């Protein structure tokens, strides 16, 4: 039987693969976060919903609960943005993962625009903070205001070092094209090319997605989940309980491509002929992404929470210094390699 050509379209497969695998990774990572925190704190964590799977279906139960809950829109909120911003948050958080290729031939974008994929992804990801500040304004209570103000200050802490880390790697690779970037990491991954940039990337992403120890804008102990404090039901699932993890997924995907070598040891052939090779390459990228995300959620179980002023001074005094040093290292590699 002849397979219709649209069924073998790389765009369709990229879309499906990214969507399905990101959902699976999202569920697994939330479960893993709870189980790791439970192990470190000598607890068991989610168990009784599915004891043989270690409580994995607890996430399904939570998702069903989030969807079935009553949607509450508070009287004082600005209704339009209150309803519109959570879906926009998820859209902007997930969009960057569609802008980068999962294998040399498996990409949603085609060549001229794919060349700028990582740049576009970063640009979209940095817009997330505007959504968060807008949510803080739309929710309209004091915790949301404080959280939104904190988020607006935190962006000044992570934006420049994170951009600098990626720019350093572009300088090292002498290209911004994601496929060529991965091709240059066949033997040595980017984290070994420039470890300083990788450290800056780790710290910057922890700040950008409010992982510990930088969970400042939405820390329950201080500001009652900050900008998301009046969200319930599906809105909470789209933002605080799910959307942030999708943003973490997008950041980690970029990190897996730029710092961990993407699909590096696997070099699949052209798309329709070497279908399984391309899918294996995409799966390998996703495994690296998952490991990065696992590290970020692991931080929750061991880290304290830094104060806002400590974070800002730490960022401008140390992280920016390391980022400049990383750029110097990359410049040296640019001229030497």
């Amino acid at each position, binding site marked *: 039987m002849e397979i219709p050509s649209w069924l073998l379209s790389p765009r369709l497969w990229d879309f499906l693969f990214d969507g399905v695998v990101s959902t699976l990774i999202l569920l697994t990572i939330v479960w893993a976060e709870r189980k790791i925190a*439970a*192990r*470190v704190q*000598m607890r*068991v964590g989610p168990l009784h919903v599915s004891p043989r799977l270690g409580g994995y279906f607890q996430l399904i139960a939570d998702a069903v609960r989030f969807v079935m809950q009553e949607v509450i829109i508070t009287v004082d909120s600005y209704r339009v943005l209150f309803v519109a911003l959570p879906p926009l948050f998820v859209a902007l958080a997930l969009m960057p993962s569609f802008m980068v290729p999962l294998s040399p031939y498996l990409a949603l974008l085609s060549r001229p625009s794919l060349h700028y994929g990582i740049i576009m992804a970063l640009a979209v990801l940095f817009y997330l903070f505007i959504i968060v500040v807008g949510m803080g304004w739309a929710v309209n209570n004091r915790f949301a205001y404080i959280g939104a103000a904190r988020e607006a200050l935190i962006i000044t802490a992570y934006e420049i070092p994170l951009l600098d880390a990626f720019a350093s790697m572009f300088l090292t690779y002498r290209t911004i094209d994601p496929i060529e970037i991965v091709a240059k990491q066949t033997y040595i991954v980017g984290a070994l090319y420039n470890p300083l940039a990788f450290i800056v990337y780790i710290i910057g992403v922890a700040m950008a997605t409010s992982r510990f120890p930088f969970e400042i804008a939405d820390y329950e102990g201080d500001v009652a989940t900050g900008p998301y404090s009046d969200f319930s039901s599906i809105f909470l699932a789209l933002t605080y309980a799910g959307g942030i993890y999708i943003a973490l997924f997008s950041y980690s995907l970029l990190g897996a491509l730029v710092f961990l070598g993407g699909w590096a040891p696997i070099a699949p052939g052209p798309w329709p002929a070497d279908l399984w090779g391309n899918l294996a390459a995409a799966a390998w990228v996703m495994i690296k992404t998952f490991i990065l995300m696992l590290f970020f959620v*692991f931080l929750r179980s*061991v*880290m304290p929470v830094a104060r806002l002023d400590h974070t800002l*001074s730490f960022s401008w005094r140390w992280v920016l210094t390391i980022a400049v040093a990383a750029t110097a290292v990359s410049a040296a590699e640019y001229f030497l390699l």
Partner: protein
Amino acid sequence: MAGQKVGEAIRAVLDVIGLGLKYTLRPERLTIYYPYEVPDYMGRVRGWIGLWTERCTSCMICARICPTNAIKMYMEKNGRRYPGIDYGRCIMCHYCIDACPTYALYPTDMRDLAFYRHEDMMYTPDMMRKPPQVPKLVPQVVKVVHEYSGGRVVKVRLGELGEHKPLPPAPSVPVVES
């Protein structure tokens, strides 16, 4: 970060990540899965309080020593008063058992008491002769204890939980004719 050596901060971060990894890979979990496992107190626990009315002299010392006023003296058909315990108030201190001059009150190690209604907590003297039947929630209930072995606290299974037995009665004293 402020006022801290950079080396110390980096070492602290690496230390805590190592510690977290150690516990993630080799957890020391002490959780007792309650309906399936129950802690074994080896009898050294204060629980439900029973009463042998034929030994009771109706002296009311138990009712007076009770710190929460949980004991009420009920008038029985033979014209004497016997204690009944309100388990909504009882804190299982067992002062009444210690104070009883004729060992009419006896201790047990039954702690798993649950009641549907508040009235069920009011035990009258005739209800206190035999311990209440605690149904098993799951078919197999295992006794566990926490033990210290090899530098870690581990949970040890001691085998299946048997039936609750009341402790053997105290040394015999003259039974008061009622």
